[in-house]
């Protein structure tokens, strides 16, 4: 490859007047994280509840949960992003819709992006929480029930603490996905990391430098997530428990 890398471009001022390019990108990382973290909180909350409800003995609750999951799982992320940005404000009561549309940038893009990513990710978490609970032996639920625990207590003290330990590794992947998927928000005008890398390329014509920086920054960010989650896994590890098998320690 014959390309003259110009590393000093990072220290050049960007034309928007906010400072040098590297600062411009780091602010983009800030928006990436702000979007991803807010979406993660929403996804974890809704996903845990929906995933749990789908394992209850109540048929209608299970059906509602399944419908929710299928809706958000079967539509591409970028289409959902456009729906949240262009369509949802029109469906809201007029005053609320106008308020959303007139929000100053970047909030007018940030809010739909967070909602979109949060709900999109929530169904994936719901799936994982559901399969985590499903992987526990039926006897665990019975043992809790037989002791007199109510259904809610059984989930709270017996089933979910085990299920979350099991799904922690896939949740790590989801957390990384939400960070990576937040880049789709550039399509509705949010200047997060990818959006800013693209802008830098357009201003400076330094496409390799711009995306090299974005690549490295995403990589480092997700490495932090990986190590953070690994530390968490270690912290909640149960002595003697290698699997959900009830007779694991017996022989």
């Amino acid at each position, binding site marked *: 490859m014959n390309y003259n890398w110009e590393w000093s471009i990072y220290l050049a001022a960007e034309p928007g007047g906010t400072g040098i390019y590297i600062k411009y990108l780091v602010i983009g990382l800030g928006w990436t994280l702000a979007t991803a973290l807010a979406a993660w909180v929403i996804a974890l909350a809704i996903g845990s509840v929906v995933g749990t409800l789908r394992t209850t003995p109540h048929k209608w609750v299970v059906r509602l949960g399944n419908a929710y999951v299928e809706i958000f799982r079967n539509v591409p992320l970028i289409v959902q992003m456009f729906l949240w940005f262009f369509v949802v404000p029109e469906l809201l009561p007029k005053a609320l819709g106008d308020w959303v549309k007139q929000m100053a940038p970047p909030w007018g893009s940030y809010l739909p992006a967070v909602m979109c990513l949060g709900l999109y990710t929530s169904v994936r978490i719901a799936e994982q929480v559901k399969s985590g609970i499903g992987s526990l032996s039926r006897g665990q639920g019975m043992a809790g029930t*037989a002791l007199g*625990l109510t259904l809610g207590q059984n989930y709270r003290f017996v089933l979910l603490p085990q299920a979350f330990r099991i799904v922690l590794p896939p949740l790590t992947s989801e957390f990384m996905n939400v960070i990576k998927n937040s880049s789709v928000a550039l399509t509705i005008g949010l200047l997060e990391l990818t959006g800013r890398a693209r802008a830098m390329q357009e201003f400076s014509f330094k496409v390799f430098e711009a995306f090299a920086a974005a690549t490295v920054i995403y990589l480092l960010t997700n490495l932090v997530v990986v190590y953070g989650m690994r530390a968490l896994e270690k912290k909640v590890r149960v002595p003697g428990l290698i699997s959900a098998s009830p007779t694991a*320690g017996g022989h």
Partner: protein
Amino acid sequence: MISIKNISKWYGSFQVLTDCSTEVKKGEVVVVCGPSGSGKSTIIKCVNALEPFQKGEITVDGISVGDPKTDLPKLRSRIGMVFQNFELFPHLSVTENLTLAQIKVLGRTPEAARDKALKLLDRVGLMAHKDKFPGQLSGGQQQRVAIARALSIDPIAMLFDEPTSALDPEMINEVLDVMVQLAQEGMTMMVVTHEMGFAKRVAHRVIFMDAGKIIEDCTKDDFFGTQRSERAQLFLSKILHH
């Protein structure tokens, strides 16, 4: 104490229990045996409503199990149950396994629950393991903890669902010893088991089931004597002589 009247149960169109009736009096030890698939585990799970049944009535201490108005969690908190696969909560320490229901169901203080838990662990000979997790114990030890956990809620009766079937042979006796002691102290017990030695030692009555029906329901002496059905004789000859 436990009264089972004309219970029938279906899984879809398959009938697993057909018109079963029996009674367990206070302080009585009743052993339920029979070939696999005979419905013995199912009937014992109907007693604390872990399995629903479609016909008949079960009452425990005068409270109807099938009545939709019955507070099932409360009823269950008065009955101890021990499972074939122990079903200890693997994410909780041994002591926490014994205090969970005491605190969350019975509303005892953590201190009182802990005192009770330690007394029970001492009783089943596992005091040294109080801070371990279930995965760090042998099968026999886990089942003894499970019995202690069932006792932690001060049950009026205990149900055992094949408590020794998942154990290695050398661990069976340590569990049976705890159960024999419990029987001798006058606990009301309904025990699904193939351990005929246990039945001979402490049972008052033996129920023999086959294909979802109670074939025999008689005193221990009658059961191990001569007055029994051909089916029960055949079953006994198979499990006693190997």
